[in-house]
């Protein structure tokens, strides 16, 4: 008895010690192992934290992020560029508070050459960098993209910085969830700047905030209307959007949404690649648009308001009048897809893919029948958005899901819309997996299982090409692989009109041959695959006699709708159409345009030719 009592006592002591050890280790991880990160005040000479900028249409938008200024400190910030070896002041601006940002806009910017810049505050603080020349003649434009900078690791990102410097991209894109601290944006935004400032100081950068940035776990903005999952604090949202997006080109339509929340959706042309920068949460319908009681009576089982465990029919969730991008952004896309000024190829930058690409969610790998946070919902609104985007043959680049994927979207049929490349998270604290039920479509060694055509959880048609599932095995001694963490690179080859997507893991040197991309990558597609819809008829071949790479626009005469617009490569192109009828073909180069009306569609085997002279018209 005594022996047993002593053994049990010892066991209890071990249990207590283990509990104390676990809590102690947890405390150590939170304190000693995490660097001091809440830094808002620094010495006067270091007060400029980092800089973000873009250049579009000869307009420089540059925002300097400052640490908190003392009340008595000067609020003026100066921008200088080096000319003939001397610093010359070209602009001044006042600091915005509480963001502590200094946004500059310089018009008539000479983007034909590099400019060294210096941002100055007071007498001591100076921050230098490089405004790059517009890479118009560069054959390949490289975009490096990131998402989900989780706060479970608040340390520096040296592996990413070094690899990005090796790649030397022309543009950086941060698709959202730059910060996860929902209540104090300034402090975590300054940390983000310390983590990524070394790569943003020397190249244009697009940043768009996602749900966590604006203080929401998930976000259904619904035009600013209050409600479940809507914006919580408009003042906080304005602060975040000012800090993260004031360096973007001016908004396409700056009219505020409800509660005075601004907009930033816009376009950017850089290196002859056109980028539409979208806000795919701001106008999205809130989930109370669904009649939950009615759905439950049909057998839909909710595990929480936005998570559905059982869904007898995905169509139950579709709300035809629901919105995803909203009418304003759809109008913007209609115009943007038709405008190829200074552009050879196009890309849409947004927060999340327009499909539900994850089946298993979170540490317990819960299989959801549907996640309403995904942009696969509302289905009809998703289809309307993709219907617009494909008219510009634009690839979509996004993130949010903590799961890197390449899919081709389908609207009416599989593969009839564009490709979508979702980034892996930089730090993935909440893992998701692509894991459809059923058997794999392939047994080819080296391929990925479970690729090919699938209906996502909302019944949307998607074709999966690659996914980077987390790999939490005990024998894979790489925490980044176990998270499926990394970053994406998209290469636009303007001569070949191809787009190559690369998905790199973190923690290795990408120039080392042993550092491999996630299985399934790289993937190369042609520009035209972004409108993969099958032709039902063709128009005569357009042959432009006197201009290279003109823009061709096809308009349906019976509906007046622009079917698509494309800058072709070369001088000859045979437009495809999707129903028989008559069409108007508009062909234009930089200044001149020829319009051919009443063009009858032809079967594929019947070949005719229309010759067009653009310069002759001018003469």
């Amino acid at each position, binding site marked *: *008895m005594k*022996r*047993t009592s*002593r*053994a*049990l006592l*010892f*066991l*209890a002591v*071990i*249990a207590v*010690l*283990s*509990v104390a*050890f*676990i*809590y102690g*280790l*947890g405390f150590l*991880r939170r304190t000693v192992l995490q660097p001091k990160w809440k830094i808002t005040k620094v010495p006067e000479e270091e007060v400029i934290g980092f800089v973000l900028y873009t250049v579009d249409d000869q307009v420089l938008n540059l925002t300097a992020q400052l640490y908190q200024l003392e009340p008595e400190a000067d609020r003026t910030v100066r921008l200088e560029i080096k000319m003939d070896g001397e610093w010359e002041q070209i602009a001044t601006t006042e600091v915005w508070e509480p963001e502590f940002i200094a946004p500059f806009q310089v018009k008539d910017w000479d983007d034909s050459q590099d400019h060294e810049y210096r941002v100055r505050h007071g007498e001591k603080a100076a921050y230098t960098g490089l405004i790059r020349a517009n890479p118009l003649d560069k054959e390949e434009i490289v975009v490096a993209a990131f998402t989900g900078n989780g706060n479970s690791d608040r340390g520096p990102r040296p592996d990413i910085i070094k690899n990005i410097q090796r790649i030397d991209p022309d543009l950086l894109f941060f698709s959202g969830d730059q910060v996860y601290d929902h209540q104090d944006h300034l402090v975590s935004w300054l940390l983000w700047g310390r983590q990524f400032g070394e790569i943003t100081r020397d190249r244009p950068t697009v940043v768009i905030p996602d749900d966590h940035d604006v203080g929401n776990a998930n976000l259904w903005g619904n035009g600013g209307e209050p409600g479940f999952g809507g914006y919580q604090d408009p003042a906080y949202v304005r602060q975040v959007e000012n800090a993260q997006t004031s360096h973007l080109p001016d908004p396409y339509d700056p009219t505020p949404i409800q509660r005075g929340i601004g907009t930033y959706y816009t376009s950017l042309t850089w290196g002859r690649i056109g980028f539409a920068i979208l806000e795919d949460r701001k106008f999205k319908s809130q989930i109370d648009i669904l009649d939950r009681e009615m759905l439950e009576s049909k057998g839909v089982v909710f595990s929480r308001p936005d998570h559905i465990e059982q869904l007898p029919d995905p169509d139950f969730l579709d709300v035809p009048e629901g919105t995803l991008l909203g009418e304003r952004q759809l109008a913007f896309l209609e115009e943007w897809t038709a405008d190829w000024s200074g552009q050879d190829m196009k890309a849409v930058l947004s927060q999340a893919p327009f499909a539900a690409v994850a089946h*298993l969610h979170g*540490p*317990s*790998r*819960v*299989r959801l029948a549907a996640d309403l946070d995904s942009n696969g919902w509302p289905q009809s609104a998703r289809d309307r958005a993709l219907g617009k985007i494909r008219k510009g043959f634009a690839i979509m680049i996004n993130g949010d899901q903590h799961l890197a994927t390449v899919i081709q979207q389908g609207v009416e049929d599989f593969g009839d819309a564009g490709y979508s490349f979702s980034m892996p998270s930089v730090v993935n604290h909440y893992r998701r*997996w*692509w*894991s459809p*039920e059923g*058997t*794999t479509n*392939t*047994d*080819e*060694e*080296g*391929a*990925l*299982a*479970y690729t090919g055509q699938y209906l996502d959880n909302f019944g949307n048609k998607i074709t999966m090409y690659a*996914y*980077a*599932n*987390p*790999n*939490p*095995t*005990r*024998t894979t*001694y*790489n*925490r980044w692989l*176990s998270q499926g963490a990394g970053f994406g690179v998209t290469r636009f080859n303007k001569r070949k009109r191809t787009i190559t997507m690369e998905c790199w893991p973190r923690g290795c040197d990408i120039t080392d041959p042993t550092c491999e991309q*996630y*299985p*399934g990558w790289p993937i190369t597609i042609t520009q035209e695959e972004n409108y993969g819809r099958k032709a039902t008829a063709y128009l005569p071949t357009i042959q432009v006699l006197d201009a290279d790479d003109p823009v061709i626009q096809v308009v349906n005469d019976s509906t007046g709708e622009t079917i698509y617009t494309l800058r072709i490569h070369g001088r000859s192109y045979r437009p495809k159409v999707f129903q028989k009828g008559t069409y108007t073909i508009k062909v234009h180069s930089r200044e001149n345009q020829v319009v051919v009306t009443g063009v009858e569609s032809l079967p594929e085997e019947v070949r005719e030719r229309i010759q067009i002279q653009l310069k002759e018209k001018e003469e």
Partner: protein
Amino acid sequence: MRKRTFTWLAVLLIFLLLFLVIKAVIGQGVSYKQAPLILTSVSLIVLFGLYLLTSRYDIWIVGPKQVLYMGVGAGLYMLIRYLFTAILQISFGKISIHPAVCIPVLFGFSFGPGVGFFTGAVGSLLADFAIGWDVFPIWSIATGMTGMIPGFMSLLKEENIPQRYLSTLVILLIILSAGMVFLHPVVPEPWTGEIKDYTFWAYALLMGGAIMIANGYLMEQRDLNFVSINLWGALGIIVSTLLTSLGDIWLNNFSLETALIGEYAPYTAIDLLNLVLFAPLIMAAYHAARNRLGVRVQS
């Protein structure tokens, strides 16, 4: 007998308590999904059943010394795994070096199944937590079983069952495992979905088996314990990895082929190779320490 039962239940309860504490500390709720709950419960019931079947043997005696060994074993496992997993991260090709697998085997073999289970299960929980991963009850229970099974070693002696039966069983299991991979080598990787050729792991399994047999011949004259440790440890690894892999069919939707070829075969091969390579070294170190400190071993 009641005291032993009470003590063994206390061991299992402490494991569960620590699991819940770690989940709370890392800020994750416990999954109450059917599959993990049922699998964890069934595993614990099986463990208790194993105890009931063998409770009459002295291997289940848990006194203050055994409790001390449990604490030392779990701590040692955590430290060695943390060292090799989070810091050193050494691997030779596809074979990662993690000698921690030997710790529950040696503690179970030397101090009984209760100590072996606690060393593996709690050590695995603590190591996963320290490294910064999520904790997985089935994996921890399986690591506990890797330590528990060698604790049954003395049963063979007491029941006068020749060790060659065990040798034959283990060698057959290894050959079967390798044969299974040779027959169907190309399957999707469990987590990433990449379709891979797993033939390498069949050779690795055979290599592990061959080193185990060679160890037996080489060490037989010197210390029979070496041979037994290899055999019992290999059996523990095979059984526990099979448990987790088959469990993943239900838990993680793996196909049978992915569970057996993509998960069971590589993990078993890696653990087996680490066991047969490092157990003699650790045993030698242990003997040296024991001689110096005068510690007595149950076996």
